[in-house]
């Protein structure tokens, strides 16, 4: 493994009120690798990934204990610029959430609010580049002014990926990106993730074990908020050290 991981959770605990949703997690996500988080529903996968860009801050009555380091620096604590952090760590949500704007304006949104839009030419350039990176350009290049809702579900999700890429993040978090999408569209997004990891660090939450096996380099298996096993994906899927992991990946429960 690399000497210094891009993201590192250290004894991470998360509380919804009195309920402890994450228990002493230690997970490292390596630079330009794909880390998959798997586990049964309600195991804390989504909670974990949402702590990485502090999206849980918006949920009332929650509390974090432990630490998360990005490039060796803590991102918790009140002094951290959360807005800046979320620019560095992009996120793609479970359900495609395009904004009710044009395709172009969706991709341009992050640039505009962050004052990165610059000239019209520059903006158009970045929008095109992001759409190409998200493998959507060819399908939408003649209809950039159309409402994003006119796209299919899979296209909408790739649009959301393009929107995240446009602000030039270092990490992209995928929170079950394919759970609301058909198999063909899923395959496209998996291809895309494969290509993205040459530039970005990727963390993906998925309930689909085959997907984790296909796209990831490392896999973390969570159950009831606890880390059962963490290692490189091949080992987890061929020779897991824990009986629980084996039972889960062979489909005996979950």
């Amino acid at each position, binding site marked *: 493994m690399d000497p210094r991981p891009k993201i590192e959770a250290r004894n991470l605990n998360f509380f919804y009120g009195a309920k402890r949703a994450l228990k002493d997690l230690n997970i490292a996500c390596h630079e330009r690798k794909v880390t998959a988080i798997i586990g049964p529903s309600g195991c804390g996968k989504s909670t974990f990934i949402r702590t990485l*860009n502090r*999206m849980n801050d*918006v949920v*009332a009555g929650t509390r974090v204990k432990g630490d998360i380091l990005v490039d060796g620096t803590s991102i918790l604590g009140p002094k951290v610029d959360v*807005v*800046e952090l*979320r*620019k560095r760590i*992009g*996120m793609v*949500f479970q*359900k495609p*959430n395009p*904004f*009710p*704007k*044009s395709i172009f304006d969706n991709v341009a*949104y*992050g640039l505009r*609010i*962050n004052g990165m839009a610059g000239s019209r030419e520059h903006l158009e350039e970045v929008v095109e580049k992001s759409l190409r990176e998200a493998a959507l350009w060819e399908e939408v290049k003649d209809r950039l002014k159309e*409402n994003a809702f006119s796209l299919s579900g899979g296209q909408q999700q790739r649009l*959301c990926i393009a*929107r*995240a890429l446009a*602000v030039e993040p270092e990490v992209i978090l995928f929170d079950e990106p394919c759970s609301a999408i058909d198999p063909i569209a899923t395959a496209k997004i998996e291809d895309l993730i494969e290509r993205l990891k040459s530039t970005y660090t990727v963390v993906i939450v998925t309930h689909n074990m085959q997907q984790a096996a296909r796209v990831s380099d490392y896999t973390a298996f969570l159950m009831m908020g606890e880390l059962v096993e963490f290692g490189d994906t091949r080992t987890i899927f061929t020779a897991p050290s824990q009986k629980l992991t084996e039972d889960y990946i062979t489909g005996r429960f979950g």
Partner: protein
Amino acid sequence: MKRRLSFRKAAVQAFGFFGLRAATGLVLAVLVLILFDIGSKGAGTITWEFLSQPPRRGMTEGGIFPAIYGTLLVTLITAVLAVPLGMGAAVYLNEYARKNRLTRLIRLSIRNLSGVPSIVYGLFGVILFVNIFKFGTSVLSAGLTLGLLTLPWTITASEEALKQVPNAYREGALALGATKWQSIRTNVLPYALPGMLTGTVLGLARAAGETAPIMFTGAAFSLPILPQSVKDQFMALPYHLYIMATQHHDIGKVRPLAYGTALVLIALVLGMNLGAVILRYRLRRRQRRF
């Protein structure tokens, strides 16, 4: 056995539907009856002179222009107070305030305020605006009093409109590095605005038809000239109607004028409501198309 059961079900269903239709029909009938009564008796009075002239000879002749002007003016002042305050409070309550006992209490109070009788607002306005703030009995005091009356409606309607905006828009914007206010301004408010405006205009329309809150705060029985500033008294349609219908020394003689006034007032209020519906429709369509 089987047939009898399904017959019973069908009968219950038919009876249920009949009841629901009758209820709807009854409500509609009342509205139609009111509109027809006022329309048929008031239409004859509506002339250009009626709309553009002040009353003459103790209201038995002439028109109601000062009252129309006064109502529009007081509604404008109401809007200036109620629209920004109402929308602002709604944004605070829905987007910023923590969901705790205090905000629940605030919300409950706002709901309760909308149930306070309008005469109470009127007396409150006399104390606060006329006496304490020393605005006198004026169109300003009356407008502000109506503003207070409208606020609970404006806040509630605006909050409902904000609730309709999916959370995914807020989170999506935040995840791209938007500040909370940026996400609200660019990704929540534009989509809530049609609903907010509709609710607000409906509230204003209600305020425009109120009599009790303006009776002691600024509305005048009769005025020789139009109000020259917001510190002047004014004539208003609902109050004018009230006087002609109950306080006039020759009620029989002014009856047609009273009907004409009622018709103008109803047309104004319905017009505002219709305007709100059209506004919402157009804003929604523009958003879908942009």
